[in-house]
């Protein structure tokens, strides 16, 4: 399938909000049409062509090159197609996406996939705070979809998430899955403190030991079948080196919580065997 190539030729001086850099806006447009798409350069309206060289007609698949760490909202609202980014990306990547796929061969910063309801975001490097999280003041975070981060992330992964799967290949910061409503977060590295604080339902899986809040209660040590299925699927998505046989076949300590909430959530800590 043909691809539209966008190459960053001018680094923005201030943050560039480019929600039009998405199959949802680009598909079906000519090269000129894409270059004339509006972006916000700080408080000034600008054109896509002011920053990107466009090659090819607008397709459902987009290839973006350059250091996009100041470019926000790439892949906004996409429901189909594929965005392939070679370089680092800025905040709010995949905001409001409901389908399709974003693959970043670099690092992302804060707010990966806010308001996501479907599709998949894969970050091959690290990401910042608030991956798959609710914006401040919102009661629910992502309501579906998959976010795969192969590196490490900072605080508040999956804050208030309602559904979906978030997998972190490296370490996660504090308050992982805080106020989680439902869904699954899997952390293959170390996890910070206060994991699952205020969680109502949902599952947090940690491959390494972590601190458990006093309001969680130890339930049992067992081998959850669903987890094996999840992990086998994640192995197919590039987590093969992190997920070993012991993780597939080993036992997990289950803690139920959060006691101050509904107590229907669970933290599964890999028991080491």
């Amino acid at each position: 399938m043909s691809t539209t190539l966008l190459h960053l030729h001018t680094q923005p001086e201030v943050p560039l909000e480019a929600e039009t850099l998405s199959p949802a806006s680009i598909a079906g447009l000519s090269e000129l049409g894409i270059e004339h798409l509006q972006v916000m350069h700080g408080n000034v309206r600008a054109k896509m062509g002011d920053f990107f060289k466009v090659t090819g007609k607008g397709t459902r698949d987009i290839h973006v090159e350059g250091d996009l760490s100041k470019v926000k909202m790439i892949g906004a609202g996409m429901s189909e197609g594929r965005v392939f980014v070679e370089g680092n990306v800025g905040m709010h990547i995949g905001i409001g996406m409901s389908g399709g796929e974003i693959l970043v061969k670099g690092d992302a910063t804060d707010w990966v996939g806010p308001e996501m309801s479907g599709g998949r975001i894969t970050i091959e490097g690290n990401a910042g705070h608030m991956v798959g999280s609710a914006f401040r003041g919102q009661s629910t975070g992502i309501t579906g979809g998959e976010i795969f981060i192969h590196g490490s992330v900072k605080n508040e992964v999956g804050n208030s998430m309602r559904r979906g799967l978030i997998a972190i290949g490296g370490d996660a910061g504090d308050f992982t899955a805080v106020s989680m409503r439902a869904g699954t977060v899997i952390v293959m590295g170390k996890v910070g403190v206060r994991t699952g604080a205020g969680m109502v339902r949902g599952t947090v899986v940690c491959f390494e030991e972590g601190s458990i809040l006093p309001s969680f209660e130890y339930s049992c040590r067992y081998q959850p079948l669903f987890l094996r299925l999840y992990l086998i699927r994640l192995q197919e998505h590039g987590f093969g080196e992190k997920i070993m046989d012991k993780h597939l076949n080993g036992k997990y300590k289950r803690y139920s919580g959060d006691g101050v909430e509904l107590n229907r959530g669970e933290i599964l800590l890999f028991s080491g065997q």
Partner: protein
Amino acid sequence: MPQASKTRPKESKNLKIVKDATCTFCGCVCDDMELTVDLDEHRITKAKNACVLGRAWFYEHTLEDRPVVLIDGKEATLEEGMDEAAQILVDAKFPITYGLSDCPCEAQRVAVDIMDTINGNIDTTTSVCHGPSGMAFQGVGESTATLGEIKNRADLVIYWGGNPAESHPRHFTRYAVTPKGMFIPNGKKDRTVVLIDVRKTPSTPVADIFVQVKPGKDFELLWALRALVKGKKISEDIEEQTGVSREILDDLVQRMKNCQFGVLFMGMGLTMTRGRHFNSGAVYSLAADLNEFTHFVAKPVRGHGNVTGADNVVAWQTGYPFGVNFNRGYPRFNPGEFTTSDVLARGEADAAMIVASDPASNFAKKAIAHLEKIPVISMDVKETHTTRLSRVRFAVATYGINTGGTVYRMDDVPISLRPAFDSPFPTDQEVLEGICQRVKKLLSGKKARVAA
């Protein structure tokens, strides 16, 4: 402690007494000052009822011999300064305003107007003090009361993560611990005071019960208290985790459930340590949980004189308390994305207007380094690190001492100011209004950058 607080200035004969003046040093905003003003020397010589911090505040403010405006270090007129400032702001693509906690609400309002007009970014010092409490408040709500209600009704007072004896000296004596109230006829004898902190401080002797929590374990302790209040189990290693025994926790929970009117005051020991807005959120949630059993409120103990006013003004004008961005012509709130320390550390802003604040002395190195690269407009009563790196610096009059206006006490009660003596310097409001008019003139004729 400032040296001036210990020695009272000598008086001449041309004296004026200002009764019921307001001290704007800290968030207590005590409005029962009686100031003796030496009109020849242009200074306050006596500040009756003021605490040690208030006395330093009143005695230190004299009229300094400084140029009103400096542009690139050269003296200029006020008009030239305002012209230059307006031009800098209009030319910028990502202008920011920061500070605002030490100026009256009337000036804050104009600062919001300027940023709204030029589609800039407005943030206050709240983002580096009780901003997390604001975020928590938005997330979980707030059970609140005025300090007057607390004085008249509270029989259980809990201070968590603060040291009011040194930071807000009159908080104990005027509002929450010793004053006699309508339903607290015997003052402190009718109250139980609990202090929770990671170490003993000069505030500790005031407390009937001192609970020492392990550093960085406040959230765990709050969470355990929430669970116990709700009658849920907590893990047996709670003492190992937090440093507080189960017996102490049970006793505290019983006291909280059985009091008539309880209050939780939280300090920056909670909001600026690991967990930040979740620590504040846990305090608000605990207070909300306790309302199942009795009346319980939670209040942050705010620092700067009018930081609460900054929250109120920015909130009533934009809908959000701090960290508000107008780039698209409408307000957006996102702490972390639009808060000044983060915006500067990421090197995003291309012009800054700093009002009554000194970020160049207390922000992260990366943020200060960026502040040095961009054009900065500053307004302050004293010379600071920030004014020294500014392209345009305005020397302004001191609010509460030289100028009137409105400030908000830490419990969101607005209080009017009674200035002591005149100043030759312009007020923050006058400078900001001048800049605002010029910005609007520069932008008129041009099509607005972004349709609202």
